[in-house]
């Protein structure tokens, strides 16, 4: 009886190992910024996605993670990978803007950015290495609010969706996220706009990871994102066109 169980266990293990090493052929592994969680599967539902803070994903790729495509919320991280020979030359595929979100109940009565400097406000931001975190620091620097607002930070999260969650749950008084993220929980949060002149240049970069064994498919995926249909989908979710339209 025990011997039977042992044999069965070995077979199960063998099958499991076999499955693990036999990669499903046409499915790519796309490492993408957390803010792309909703839109990327809509552009291409057939791929395997891993969403998270772009800096964590980049670090994992550096450590040898089996990604085929890397889509980051900035150009800095993929450019760094390119300099190390870990991915192809990145291209800009979309842009975004930042907003402040507050819970629907607005417990700290935040009606404008300057209210974030009030005493006792519980502000949640992403860590400085996360793209949205560094964009936040840039905004505060542009508005000359760094010292007064940053002392209200109660937590530094690892990606933008965690910032959003803490605000949507009502635990934090305010958080800096992308305008596209705010749209996903519009019933739970209110948006406080960041003035256009203070917005940093937010450009998302995408590249083919050098270790990929599916470079042709990866290239095709990127083409799909850059195509008219892909770009239309991004605009539908609130992202900005990848090339800024020249205002006359």
């Amino acid at each position, binding site marked *: 009886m025990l011997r039977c169980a042992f044999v069965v266990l070995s077979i199960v293990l063998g099958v499991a190992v076999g499955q693990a090493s036999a990669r499903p052929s046409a499915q790519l592994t796309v490492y993408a910024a957390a803010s792309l969680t909703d839109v990327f599967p809509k552009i291409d539902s057939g791929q395997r996605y891993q969403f998270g803070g772009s800096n964590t994903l980049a670090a994992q790729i550096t450590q040898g993670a089996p990604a085929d495509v890397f889509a980051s919320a900035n150009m800095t991280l993929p450019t760094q990978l390119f300099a190390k020979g870990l991915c192809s030359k990145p291209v800009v595929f979309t842009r975004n803007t930042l907003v402040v979100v507050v819970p629907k109940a607005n417990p700290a009565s935040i009606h404008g950015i300057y209210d974030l400097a009030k005493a006792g406000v*519980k502000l949640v931001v992403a860590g400085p290495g996360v793209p949205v975190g560094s964009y936040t620091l840039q905004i505060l620097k542009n508005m000359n609010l760094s010292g007064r607002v940053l002392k209200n930070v109660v937590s*530094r999260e*690892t990606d933008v969706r965690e910032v959003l969650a803490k605000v949507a749950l009502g635990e934090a008084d305010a958080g800096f996220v992308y305008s596209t993220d705010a749209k996903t929980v519009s019933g739970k949060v209110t948006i406080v706009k960041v003035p256009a002149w203070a917005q940093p240049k937010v450009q998302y970069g995408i590249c083919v990871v050098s270790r990929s064994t599916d470079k042709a498919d990866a290239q095709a995926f990127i083409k799909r994102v850059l195509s008219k249909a892909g770009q239309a989908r991004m605009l539908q979710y609130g992202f900005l066109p990848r090339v800024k339209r020249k205002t006359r």
Partner: protein
Amino acid sequence: MQRALLSWLVGAAALVTLAFLALPVVAIFAHTTPRHLVEQLSNPVVRDAFLVSLKTSLIAQALILLLGTPTAFLLATRRFRGHAVAVTLVELPLVLPPAVAGIGLLAAFGRLGLLGSTFDALGITLPFTQTAVTIAVAYVASPLYIRQAIAAFEATDPTLAAASRTLGAGPTRTFFRVVLPLARGGLIAGLALSFARGLGEFGATIMFAGSLQRVTQTLPLAIYAEFDRNFDATLAMSGVLVLVSVLLLLGLRIGLTWPRSASNRSLYLFGPSASG
């Protein structure tokens, strides 16, 4: 022939297992030079994380000890209606995924949680404070102590406690002078387990308390935060945790086996004989 093959297979399996368990630990120290690791100990992120971890873990352990010991004693020595439910409640955090524990803590003690408005009225807010870290650590670590304590108390010979009572000692004196020393081994083992678990807590902490250097960023949280910015710091903090774990096990072995009689010659710290 068959016997030789069998012993070869068993030996090979053991070798693979031991290597598998040893490799990650060895790799932490072998990945970079010892000098880099020691340099990182003066990194403020590392130092602050260590202090937060130490403080919250010690306070959590004190709470677990003070509240968990009488709970375990009650559950071990009395049988009452709902006893099974109580034991299940005690064991629940053990099998609950830490992230779920974090959500639960938010749902209970968060601003909009069950007790949120009560705390608000008292002027207490828990999320994002160091107290929240202590609570999260205590929640996930307590079942490890309580379960071991229940087993330890159950293993004590009730006739010895009875004898103490017939000799005139009151229940309190009996507990502290007879029962507790008898159960000492199991209690210490439980404490070590729960301390180690608390030190490594991540999911519930980041959900309930957030992560801010010097306030709520414990060693595991700092490891995750520094992973992409300063891998040397990550290795140093991991090394610290490995050393603490080794010291815990060593101290435990010494504590349990040193003034012992021959009846406690167990090799295993957390096995059934540890309550001897």
